[in-house]
């Protein structure tokens, strides 16, 4: 290496980011700043969108080695946790630790509203196929309608990793926009009389039931749809830490510092996948449009099923709680409360809407499980995953492969 003044200066100048800064990079730096702006000043899911935006900022500085695809770069290490589907289940454990399923247990029929809202997933899937996406991609886009961040990231990284960035950003952005997207649809699809319906108070639930519930859900749902075990299992484990009453230490860690650490790693990793190459494509625009569709249809699905339940219950169910079936906890339930109170200030729907709201989380996880059953070719999944495991766990496979090759060559 030569260290004359001019050669050193030239080396520094050629290694600046400016030297290889392309138009795409500049646009993506702008996108990163917009995300950071929305997170801080518009309070769009700031816990996620702030580090996602910052990860995007770092990833799009040329030569910084901070894109998810830069082998050996810092954010590439974090990205392994997304790629191998480790981080989303850990986030879900924290979500479970933060969730009270009481309102759902008090009115289990609201699970149907969480199911009905999944129609948004499938309307979007059909729309995505119509726009030219293949079935796996369409499924990953559709899951945006589940209004659930970790589920979207989990499914996208499994079925369509090249679309992870726009899917994650769309999911979190529209979740933040729930208070804007839902009310007009809610007012359009319900009558004033329906919105004024006051619901009966929720009955109290035994602590024992609250403890058994996560175990039952795990057994039932994971037996039926085993692919959802990492997500739903960890959600329910977090909830069991919360409700069991004997694991306060684990509950506290799970709902605070563990979920916070994992959130930082996950969000930076997602942001680092937002490179010009992967994001500035016509597919991203399509996904943004389809995402809005997904949320709207999910809202409508929940509301219409709510009207059905209203009719069948003899007017005891306020259809406004149906829109909370999209997940987006607890934002969507608050919207139900607010739209109800706008019509009649003495109508308190919040706790009633929490039932379908958490049902929406379970519903989306089940929808994810269906996708994994359909597309997550178990064999293929093992192949993909096999990358790390045999190497860490077992030094032999590589040697066996070598031996096989040598045998073949010798003949």
């Amino acid at each position: 290496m030569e260290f004359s003044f001019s050669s050193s200066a030239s080396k520094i100048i050629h290694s600046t980011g400016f030297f290889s800064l392309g138009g795409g990079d500049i646009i993506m730096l702008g996108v990163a700043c917009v995300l950071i702006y929305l997170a801080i000043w518009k309070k769009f899911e700031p816990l996620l969108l702030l580090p996602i935006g910052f990860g995007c900022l770092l990833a799009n500085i040329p030569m910084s080695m901070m894109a998810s695809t830069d082998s050996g770069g810092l954010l590439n290490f974090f990205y392994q946790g997304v790629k191998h589907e480790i981080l989303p289940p850990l986030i879900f454990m924290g979500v479970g630790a933060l969730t009270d399923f009481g309102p759902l247990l008090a009115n289990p029929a609201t699970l149907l509203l969480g199911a009905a809202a999944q129609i948004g997933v499938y309307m979007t899937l059909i729309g995505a196929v119509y726009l030219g996406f293949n079935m796996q991609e369409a499924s990953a886009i559709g899951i945006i309608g589940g209004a659930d961040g970790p589920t979207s990231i989990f499914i996208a990284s499994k079925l369509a990793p090249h679309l992870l960035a726009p899917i994650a950003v769309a999911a979190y952005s529209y979740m933040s926009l729930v208070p804007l997207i839902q009310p007009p649809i809610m007012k359009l699809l319900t009558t004033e009389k329906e919105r004024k319906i006051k619901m009966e108070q929720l009955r109290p639930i035994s602590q024992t039931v609250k403890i058994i519930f996560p175990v039952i859900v795990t057994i039932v749902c994971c037996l039926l749809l085993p692919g959802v075990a990492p997500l739903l299992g960890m959600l329910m484990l977090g909830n069991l830490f919360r409700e069991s009453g004997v694991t306060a230490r684990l509950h506290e860690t799970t709902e605070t510092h563990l979920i916070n650490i994992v959130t930082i790693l996950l969000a930076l990793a997602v942001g680092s996948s937002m490179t010009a190459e992967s994001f500035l494509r016509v597919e991203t625009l399509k996904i943004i449009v389809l995402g809005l569709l997904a949320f709207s249809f999910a809202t409508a699905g929940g509301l219409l099923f709510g009207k059905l339940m209203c009719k069948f219950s003899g007017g005891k169910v306020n259809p406004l709680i149906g829109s909370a079936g999209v997940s987006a906890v607890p934002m969507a339930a608050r919207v139900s409360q607010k739209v109800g109170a706008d019509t009649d200030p003495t109508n308190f729907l919040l706790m009633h809407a929490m039932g379908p709201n958490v049902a929406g989380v379970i519903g989306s996880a089940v929808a994810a499980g269906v996708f994994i059953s359909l597309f997550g070719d178990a064999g293929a999944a093992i192949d993909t995953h096999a990358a790390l495991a045999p190497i860490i766990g077992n030094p032999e496979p590589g040697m066996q492969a070598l031996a096989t090759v040598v045998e073949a060559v010798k003949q």
Partner: protein
Amino acid sequence: MEASISAALNVSVLAMGVIFTVLVILIFTIQLLVKLIPYKAPPAPPARAASSPSNQDDQVAAITATLASHMGKRPDEFRIVNIQSH
């Protein structure tokens, strides 16, 4: 592999069916559970205070030993009767 709209429709109908099936099974399970284990009002608060006598014994023992150590007395020269948290 371009997917056809009809395939998408098939998958969608099937998936919604599975989702409703799974969640209906869950509803029945919950209803059964709630019926089998009804809510009971929690026992009166005083019951709770008396619930961990062994722990309190430990505390008495620990505090006694510590006090003894500091006061330079044998533990049996004095007795702690009760600990009240406030």
